């Protein structure tokens, strides 16, 4: 019963311990981090299995009843995202330790735990203002992680990243103020009931609020034209951090799915048209721009950041159709794209640590090239969506979901041509970086000081890749689960009644009081 708060509490306790108790002992920090990540996975798995049969778990903080107190809610969607975060965090942590990135600055492990805390909280909360608070928790930790290990280029990118997100937070507060002024509540389930009561003649306020909120989440999800913060900051961030950030764009997508299926759902008259008329074209545009960016990039790290924008575009295309099939497809693709993007960022670091620069030009072969290029090949196939890996399955599901929509021709044309462009982009990058290198021979002996990748780093990358393979092999089962999840999203009544009807303080007294 109390387990649902564990994903938030656990890192919140570990992080101060790491700062206060193990400040000068990197080995203790590492073991605490790994143990925390493993415990996190265990808890997340428990929550996931508990919610898999469709039960909605409610946790009232301080036992205050729903519209007055803050609640955490665990349904299929929340627990799936929690599990994904926990698994990703473990592999990223393994890589950060293996590649010794965590030693290059201070407080990496503490910030990492705070970041996990914020992400978990954002996935579990059932209250919009609480969502804002958890966004800020994950953002302030991400500011620290983003400039971990310092350097002027990184600090400059950090300034842009922080400023853009501060603007986003301000916008979020404007949206929340407008929603509160219109409905008098910020609890999502309560809000879902109240927006239907808004006078149809006076919907201006609530419409403005819903657009503002969508803008905020679109900034997080890096939907064009609100994506400008992403390329510099992800490319300049330490690669393990960028790999963890792969889940952060999904926080935005999650919030859009949650709020725009439950509160401002497509049938709601006041906000109808927001999804299909505005969100879908923006998503198609970000898919196109992302993949063109993959082809146009001159450096490998930039290439991956644009692939992230493109894949978020793909997710958003599928989300913005707002049918049961399309949300299921979007969630499958979201899991895949998180894993694929994280893997690519880690591989970029494997390459970058062994080359003079990451520019797409032929340089002498790097040590351990066979292994690294093989992994890049696999991750690129997954990201570009070629068979046999999960990107292909996900894209197929999205195309299938788009088949009956009015904008089918546009959607199909853009998805397919964007895929082609990204295939060309990745192929060009891979062959320049790895194949052309072969003709130049090995690096001169002076550079032999660069060690081959640490075993732990390879385990981390290999683990993520094998998860992609597992996702492909069990695509049928996973998609079946996603369909059930999506069905739950489109019948929000059990969620709403669980939140609003569970007694607590300030509602009808319990027995024995």
């Amino acid at each position: 019963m109390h387990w649902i708060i564990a994903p938030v509490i656990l890192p919140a306790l570990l992080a101060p311990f790491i700062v206060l108790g193990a400040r000068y002992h990197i080995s203790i920090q590492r073991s605490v981090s790994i143990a925390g990540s493993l415990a996190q996975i265990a808890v997340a798995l428990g929550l996931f299995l508990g919610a898999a049969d469709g039960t909605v778990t409610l946790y009232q903080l301080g036992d205050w009843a729903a519209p007055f107190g803050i609640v955490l809610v665990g349904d299929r969607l929340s627990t799936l995202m929690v599990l994904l975060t926990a698994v990703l965090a473990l592999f990223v942590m393994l890589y950060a330790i293996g590649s010794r990135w965590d030693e290059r600055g201070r407080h990496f492990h503490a910030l990492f735990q705070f970041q996990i805390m914020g992400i978990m909280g954002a996935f579990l909360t059932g209250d919009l203002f609480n969502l804002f608070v958890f966004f800020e928790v994950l953002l302030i930790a991400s500011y620290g992680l983003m400039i971990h290990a310092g350097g002027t280029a990184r600090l400059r990118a950090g300034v842009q990243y922080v400023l853009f997100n501060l603007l986003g937070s301000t916008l979020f507060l404007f949206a929340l103020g407008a929603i509160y002024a219109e409905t008098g509540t910020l609890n999502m389930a309560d809000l879902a009931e109240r927006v239907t009561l808004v006078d149809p003649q006076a919907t201006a306020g609530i419409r403005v609020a819903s657009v503002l909120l969508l803008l905020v989440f679109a900034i997080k999800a890096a939907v064009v034209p609100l994506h400008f913060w992403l390329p510099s900051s992800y490319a300049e961030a330490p690669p393990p951090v960028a790999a963890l950030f792969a889940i952060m764009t999904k926080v935005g997508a999650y919030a859009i799915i949650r709020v725009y299926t439950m509160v401002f759902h497509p049938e709601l008259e006041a906000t109808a048209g927001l999804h299909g008329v505005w969100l879908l074209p923006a998503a198609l545009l970000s898919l196109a721009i992302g993949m063109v960016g993959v082809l146009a990039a001159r450096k490998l790290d930039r290439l991956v950041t644009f692939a992230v924008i493109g894949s978020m575009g793909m997710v958003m295309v599928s989300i913005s159709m707002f049918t049961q099939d399309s949300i299921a497809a979007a969630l499958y693709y979201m899991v895949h794209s998180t894993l694929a993007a994280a893997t690519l960022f880690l591989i970029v670091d494997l390459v970058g640590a062994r080359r003079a620069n990451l520019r797409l030009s032929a340089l002498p072969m790097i040590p351990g090239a066979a292994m690294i290029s093989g992994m890049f090949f696999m991750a690129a196939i997954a990201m570009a969506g070629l068979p046999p890996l999960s990107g292909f399955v996900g894209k197929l599901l999205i195309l299938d979901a788009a088949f009956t929509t009015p904008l089918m021709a546009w959607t199909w044309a853009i998805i397919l041509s964007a895929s082609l462009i990204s295939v060309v982009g990745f192929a060009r990058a891979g062959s320049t970086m790895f194949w052309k290198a072969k003709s130049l021979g090995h690096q001169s002996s002076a550079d032999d000081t660069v060690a081959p990748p640490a075993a732990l780093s390879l385990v981390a990358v290999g683990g993520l890749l094998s998860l992609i393979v597992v996702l492909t092999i069990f695509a049928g089962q996973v998609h079946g689960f996603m369909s059930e999840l999506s069905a739950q999203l489109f019948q929000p009544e059990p969620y709403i009644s669980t939140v609003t009807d569970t007694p607590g303080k300030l509602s009808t007294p319990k027995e024995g009081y």
Partner: protein
Amino acid sequence: MEFLVASAIGIMTAVGLYLVMRLRTFPVILGIAMLTYAVNVFLFASGRLTIGAPPILRKGIETYADPLPQALVLTAIVISFGMTAVVVMIALGAYLGSDDDNVDDAPEEDTPGKGDAA
């Protein structure tokens, strides 16, 4: 009173937006600060404007002040204060490192073909 509060929010937002679109970090940070002031007042006003009304339910009183937006504003103030401090520190670091406080990307120094060994 409504007009005063509304125009204050409007002017602060306008000033904030203008400053945010400047090219150097100092005005941009000031702009962000102005925007957060504006949003704080906006949140405060979202619970309706009342003067001298009690926030706790009592017998015989018709008008109440909504206490929730005040709690929200307090949270928002604390968070924006912390965030502004963070961005000032990072911006200082970036400025001292590169001797340049523009917020845009530094011009790329690489020329095509320079890195090609072939």
